[in-house]
């Protein structure tokens, strides 16, 4: 298979490829397998009324081949992938402009590598005009322009009114060249050319697969590779990609290397867990939360999106915490902190133990981190006065190291001034107050109370049934 020389392979192989190229390469690998003489799709010439149809294969051939060779179980999936490959222009139906795959006897033909999208085609409208013009010169009923093509031609004639004579001449020249070709060869080439334009000027309503994500476009627009002219007309001057201004000068490389080394060293020093432990942890987490996952356990009374009934959302918003919700607080400390009702219950519990200042401090510092930067210094002072200053009304107990650090931080107040103290208090609450909360009668009652209510019909059976 001839590969056009403009598609140079980078020395790193895959490494430097733009994302689109990666996909094209994969599709081309599949095409290569499809065209393999031994294991590929059988290509044949079909005799039809008064003529031969060269070099075709049927839609169902493709689907069957894909299911067998690409490990696809589902026919729908094979059809979908096949349609995508057709839409990108790797094979096409010989008698339809719409590029899609049908699982029946419809005939398809492979596209010639010259026209493959990996050649970075960006054909100009002038080329399209030449092509449409050429088509009108061919006196064959089956080559008549479709409606949308006729409209395009009219539009282009208006747009290129001044150049039209030149375009017409080009079209004539192309038509002459075509006439000289062998009849069968011409049939094949005509269909391939038509398929090329079906990709780059698709039927209205069809997806234009040449559209690119603008974030990646800078790497796809490789000026020396992009081919804009199909019929040898003047190339336009390359323009800059809209998303990329030229990269700033490379930063001092020695500095960057030193930073990299620092980075690797920090990562090397980090403590790692064994895979088996991690896997167990992931499994148990999923297991624990599966009853809360609406994709596995239908929410009470129903999933609003399916039943159109918002009761479950209303229940969630109410202050009443259902048993399932209460149970969740027992999973870990963070669950209590996340749920506003959980926080409230925990606060009440702490108040009963006269240690609510810990939670209030923690909440205040969380709040501090969310304030606009302008308010930070005053809030820091307020929190200090309330919780940490000597003689503070809600004095909290922090270790001396955190206390000293915080005293330092206060002098230059920032959002993280209380970070150490907050971490210490968090650990304290988690290891001490939280475990007592979960074992407390108040919590257990909430857990049981709902259970009692959920217990249904009292169990006595009337046995005198004769």
């Amino acid at each position, binding site marked *: 298979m001839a590969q056009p020389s403009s598609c140079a392979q980078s020395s790193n192989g895959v490494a430097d490829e733009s994302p689109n190229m990666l996909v094209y390469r994969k599709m081309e690998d599949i095409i290569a397998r499809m065209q393999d003489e031994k294991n590929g799709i059988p290509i044949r010439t079909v005799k039809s009324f008064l003529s031969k149809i060269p070099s075709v294969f049927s839609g169902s051939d493709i689907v069957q081949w894909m299911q067998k060779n690409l490990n696809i179980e589902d026919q729908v999936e094979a059809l979908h992938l096949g349609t995508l490959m057709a839409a990108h222009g790797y094979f096409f139906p010989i008698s339809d402009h719409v590029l899609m795959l049908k699982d029946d006897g419809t005939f398809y033909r492979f596209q010639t590598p010259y026209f493959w999208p990996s050649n970075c085609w960006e054909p100009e409208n002038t080329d399209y005009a030449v092509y449409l013009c050429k088509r009108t010169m061919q006196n064959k009923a089956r080559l008549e322009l479709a409606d949308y093509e006729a409209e395009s031609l009219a539009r282009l004639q208006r747009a290129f009114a001044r150049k039209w004579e030149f375009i017409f001449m080009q079209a004539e020249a192309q038509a002459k060249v075509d006439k000289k070709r062998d009849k069968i060869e011409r049939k094949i080439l005509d269909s391939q050319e038509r398929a090329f334009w079906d990709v780059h000027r698709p039927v209205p309503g069809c997806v234009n697969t040449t559209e690119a994500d603008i974030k990646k476009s800078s790497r796809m627009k490789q000026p020396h590779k992009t081919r804009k002219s199909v019929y040898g007309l003047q190339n336009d001057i390359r323009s800059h990609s809209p*998303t990329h201004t030229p990269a700033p000068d490379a930063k001092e490389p020695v500095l960057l290397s030193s930073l990299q*080394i620092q980075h*690797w060293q920090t990562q090397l020093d980090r403590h790692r867990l064994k895979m088996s432990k991690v896997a167990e*942890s992931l499994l148990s987490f999923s297991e624990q939360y599966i009853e809360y996952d609406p994709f596995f356990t239908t929410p009470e009374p129903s999933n609003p999106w399916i039943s159109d009934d918002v009761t479950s959302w209303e229940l969630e918003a109410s202050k009443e915490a259902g048993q399932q919700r209460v149970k969740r607080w027992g999973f870990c400390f963070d669950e209590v902190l996340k749920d506003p009702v959980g926080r409230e219950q925990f606060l009440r519990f702490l108040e009963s133990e006269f240690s609510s200042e810990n939670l209030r401090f923690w909440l205040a510092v969380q709040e501090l981190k969310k304030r606009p930067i302008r308010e930070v210094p005053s809030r820091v002072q307020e929190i200090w006065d309330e919780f940490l200053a000597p003689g503070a009304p809600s004095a909290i107990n922090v270790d001396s190291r955190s206390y000293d650090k915080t005293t330092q931080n206060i002098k230059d107040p920032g959002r993280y001034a209380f970070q150490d103290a907050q971490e210490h208090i968090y650990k304290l609450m988690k290891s001490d107050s939280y475990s007592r909360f979960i074992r407390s009668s108040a919590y257990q009652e909430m857990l049981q109370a709902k259970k009692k209510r959920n217990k249904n019909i009292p169990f006595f059976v009337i046995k005198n049934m004769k």
Partner: protein
Amino acid sequence: MEPQLQGQVIRQLFFLIGATSVNSILLRKDLCSCRKGMLSSPHQNTPRHREILCFLVEMAAQPSDTLATLKTESETLKTKLEEERAKLHDVELHQVAEKIEALGQFVMKTRRALKGHGNKVLCLDWCKDKRRIVSSSQDGKVIVWDAFTTNKEHAVTMPCTWVMACAYAPSGCAVACGGLDNKCSVYPLSLDKNENLAAKKKSVAMHTNYLSACCFTNSDMQILTSSGDGTCALWDVESGQMLQSFHGHAADVLCLDLAPSETGNTFVSGGCDKKSCVWDMRTGQCVQSFETHESDINSVRYYPSGDAFASGSDDATCRLYDLRADREVAIYSKESIIFGASSVDFSLSGRLLFGGYNDYTINVWDVLKGTRVSILFGHENRVSTLRVSPDGTAFCSGSWDHTLRIWA
């Protein structure tokens, strides 16, 4: 001692001193007059500081010698890191997952279709009220929907096309968006339908290239952004001041996600350099990085427990990385999937991973077993964005076919 050797020793000593000073200045903020570290903020990156640093480092040795040695050292450390990571790899996740039951068939259908965008939908975000959605598109429009009723509640026209990022504020009272304008702007949502939202627009973030993602950090007052200029940054909404910037990616940063923890201060980002990095928001340092993808990383999302995250890439795979094991622990791929994954998200329990792909489909993966559970057809062009709702009852996908679909 030979004079040459002497010279080398002196040079090495000098370099050691120079490098140590470089380290101190970079990492100890109290030694230098600017608040944040040296290279953390391009706007406060005074030329004078850089000059001093460069002078110190360059003076210490021959630039070409040192660069080569440094590079080799860097490579050696990197290889060593890979070795260390591999040592604890005693079993595969899917092997451990063999003991749990396989998932049955799921019935997931489109429950709502949101039509109204005039061009490709590029980004979406859910409101905390579990029913509202903000979405942005290529034609510059940002629309706020009540997805439950499919009504459009607000619409804003941005002055630029390709609005690639949008986010809903936690309070539900504002949305942020940006794209080719290199900025992130915040629009307060007013209850008055007739009010022109564009008039109250507030420009917050300024980058030197397109904005690829934005996210509020648990409060209406701060926004985290990522950009095509290779950096991420944290901004104070009210003043527009940059609070912290994050440098480390070698190419465009395409996505980011905040850690779900109550106490955490970290987020993960992914970029065109095939790397995903975990950052400490307080110090601006990259604390962990992973480089196993073969192409751009389009989307990153934390596992619900915060101990792991998934990434979707143009190499047609999604991968799961665990932060405690410090490595990639699963790859989600199939021979028949050749188009890139543009967007990923987890179900509430983390058992399912939903991936939106450039082949117009959504693949649903069993996270633990590594197998595909379901493939969802429906969109007529690329799926560009996908998010699970805050309570996990549904997920929404946005596509280049101009529509959004709610699946449950």
